[in-house]
């Protein structure tokens, strides 16, 4: 049976520092601008003789060596917003010029499953629903703890809970004549119930030799692995790690974040590979902006152009787009100028990996990059 493509979106919240993630270590401007936070040469993990990885990302180098990691340089959008919320909203809704309330992943879920055949087509690991996944009528399971996802999780006695859920299901059954709002509530409640019911099998079925670390991102990726391996036909996963907003004490802080993420990503793919379930999975990582070229003496402030990454068996590894110039005259208000629109990045993944028409999802035609193998 041909496996349908699966996308995992890993959002790095807070503005991941591009310059210290993919380090232009041979460019003298790098050390000139970053008297305090520049990573010393002997610590950089070189990818080639121009760029290298932050040392904490060393575990990810194996994907680069396998040609399965794409690095998208200078990603962003015109008139970059340096506000976390606004910029993240823009990345979520693909609306840089006006406020959008619908998310690109929500639209993608609808495109993948227009008749809502599977309430678990889209799953978020986190609390609440990210705007990226919001679209009218699209059910999304938002899981903060996969062992305890669902309604009435406060009932600890299993037998009691089962009965309570049956009752819940009856109470939420659509009853004719109670109005459209009640009907909508009924449907939403039943979808959530159905999703939770299906999901509970995931931790039960799961067994793996991979031992993930005990931190937030590792737990989330492990949860995603569980759901993926349970064969529930989830096609779009979303999660986030934070906070990358390293205004101060950047060196230890960023190191910890990259360390935790890198280890978790390696474990995630190892887990999938162990179960022969990795070849249809692609993970993308992005942040709402990069950070300033010049450091502030302890960390860095909000910037513009950033970096996105793509990892997966079907990925054509390498650099895509261009590393923005660090020369003073080329900077935008002190920041790296973005040269590649993030909507093209989404479009590339949606079309080349998910097999969807991206136009309506990202709101237009944007230049794609060919980082997926044919």
């Amino acid at each position: 049976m041909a496996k349908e493509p699966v996308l995992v979106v890993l959002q790095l919240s807070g503005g991941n520092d591009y310059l210290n993630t993919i380090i232009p270590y041979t460019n003298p401007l790098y050390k000139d601008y970053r008297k305090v936070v520049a990573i010393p040469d002997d610590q950089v993990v070189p990818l080639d003789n121009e760029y290298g990885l932050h040392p904490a990302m060393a575990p990810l180098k194996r994907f680069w060596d396998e040609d399965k990691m794409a690095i998208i340089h200078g990603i962003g959008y015109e008139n970059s917003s340096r506000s976390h919320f606004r910029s993240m909203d823009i990345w979520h809704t693909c609306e840089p010029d006006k406020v959008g309330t619908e998310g690109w992943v929500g639209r993608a879920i609808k495109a993948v499953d227009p008749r809502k055949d599977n309430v678990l087509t889209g799953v978020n690991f986190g609390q609440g629903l990210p705007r990226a996944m919001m679209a009218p009528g699209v059910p999304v399971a938002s899981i903060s703890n996969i062992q305890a996802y669902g309604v009435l999780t406060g009932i600890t006695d299993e037998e009691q809970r089962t009965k309570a859920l049956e009752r819940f299901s009856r109470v939420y059954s659509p009853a004719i004549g109670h109005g459209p709002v009640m009907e909508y509530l009924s449907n939403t409640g039943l979808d959530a119930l159905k999703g939770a019911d299906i999901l509970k099998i995931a931790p039960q079925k799961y067994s793996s030799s991979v031992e993930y670390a005990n931190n937030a991102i590792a737990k989330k990726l492990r949860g995603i692995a569980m759901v993926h391996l349970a064969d529930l036909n989830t096609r779009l996963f979303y999660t986030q790690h934070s906070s990358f907003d390293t205004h101060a004490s950047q060196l230890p802080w960023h190191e910890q974040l990259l360390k935790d993420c890198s280890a978790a990503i390696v474990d995630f793919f190892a887990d999938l590979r162990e179960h022969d379930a990795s070849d249809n999975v692609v993970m993308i990582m992005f942040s709402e902006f990069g950070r300033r070229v010049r450091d502030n003496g302890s960390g860095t402030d909000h910037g513009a152009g950033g970096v996105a990454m793509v990892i997966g068996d079907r990925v054509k590894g390498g650099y895509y787009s261009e590393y923005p110039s660090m020369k003073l005259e080329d900077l935008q208000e002190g920041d790296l100028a973005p040269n590649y629109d993030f909507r093209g990045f989404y479009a590339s993944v949606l079309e080349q990996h998910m097999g969807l028409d991206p136009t309506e999802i990202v709101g237009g035609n944007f230049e794609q990059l060919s980082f997926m193998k044919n």
Partner: protein
Amino acid sequence: MGSKDIALIAHLMRRAGFGATYEELEARDAKGYEATVEELLDPDSYGVPEFDEFIPARFYPAYEWPTAPTHPQANVVYHLISSPRPLHEKMALFWHMLFATSDAKVNGNHQMLQQFHMFREYGLGDYRDLLVRVAKDPAMIFWLDNNENHTDAPNENWGRELLELFSLGVGMDGHLNYTEDDVKAAARAFTGWTMSYRIPGLAYLWGFEYKEEDHDDGEKVFLGHRGRFNGEDIVDIIVQQPATHRFIARHLYNFFVADEVQVAAWKDTPPRDPDAVNAIAKAFKESGYEIKDTLRFIFNSDFFKDERAWFAKVKNPAEVVAGTMRLVGEYKEPKPGLTLLAWEMGFQSQELLNPPSVEGWHYGQEWIDSGSLVRRVNLMADNLGDATKPGTRYIIDRLASRGGMSPEELVDGCLEIMGYIRLESETRQEYIDYVKAEAGSEVKRGVSKKEVQAFEQLVTNVLRHIASSKEYQFC
């Protein structure tokens, strides 16, 4: 047991506040409905204490000097839960949802708190006065770029939203209320209304500053009037417009009486109760745009008191969170965890002080999605089902004091003591059947430890079920 009005008072408290415990309902019922309305509207005259700012300030370091967005949010949540003047909090929330300003752009914890204070302090006063205050509010000025509105380079953002969202509305009865020229005129009139700059990153508030030299003093034509209008003149013209009376009336109807369609559809969709909205508009106008008098009119009107208005609104996350906390008796005093409540509201899609756009939050049915519904159900069910919460304990004890009850009486008793909650007959029957299956045909709290625990378990389960029902999503 109260008078025949007690259930009506419960409805009033859900709308004019964040609900009330059974004890509070009995106390208010003793005074009567009209007296309760008066006390809510004019607490000063009835000896209702003010919220004591000193108490939370002593316990929460970031209360007065918020350093992160969750701090002012937690501050507001604490007010919503524990203020002895719930209508003032509810109106502050109303104005916050109308004059939607987002910390996402303002990026000023202090500043946003200041704005919410303004809505609390002046929210029941004169609407014209409030509009001017909002026009001078530095958070609003920055939010809608009026600091970039110059005589030689006007910026229409504030001028437009003032007309579109804060007063007239786009259109009424299918026709437009203003033209693009009106927007331009309004923008010109407000040139020079800017903010004095603060030092970035420090906890100093912006102030309002009027820059005469940046003000376009020329003649404008606005809604058919001609003159060298300044901002306050525009406000004076605006408040006289029937469209304004209708728009604000419809907002008040939507917030206090029953869910309307989204505002974007108001131009072409008539109100669900046009007579009621017109009556509110009339009362608003005749009161001289006094919100207090308009609310008095609403709360005493048949369309509000009628049982068809009861439970006709989907609870907003503030009502879910603050309402639940009030009912279970949490956060009467400061203790840790307020930030989590503020976050919870965010997870339920109403992050205080940070609406998604100047259009505010979508309300009614749109509060519910597969993410928020699970959170709402779990929050309410977990709290109502927790006998360690003082409010839940009170409900258990109060029920126990009724002696032997049939399953129907137990379920109805729970509904009553939770605040005269209503369920559809099928739902109610479901819970009655549960009680019958668990405890037989007569339920009573016995004396032995085992019986006491069994009773407690039974009642908390019933409460949990009611709290998880789809009907309980409404207020």
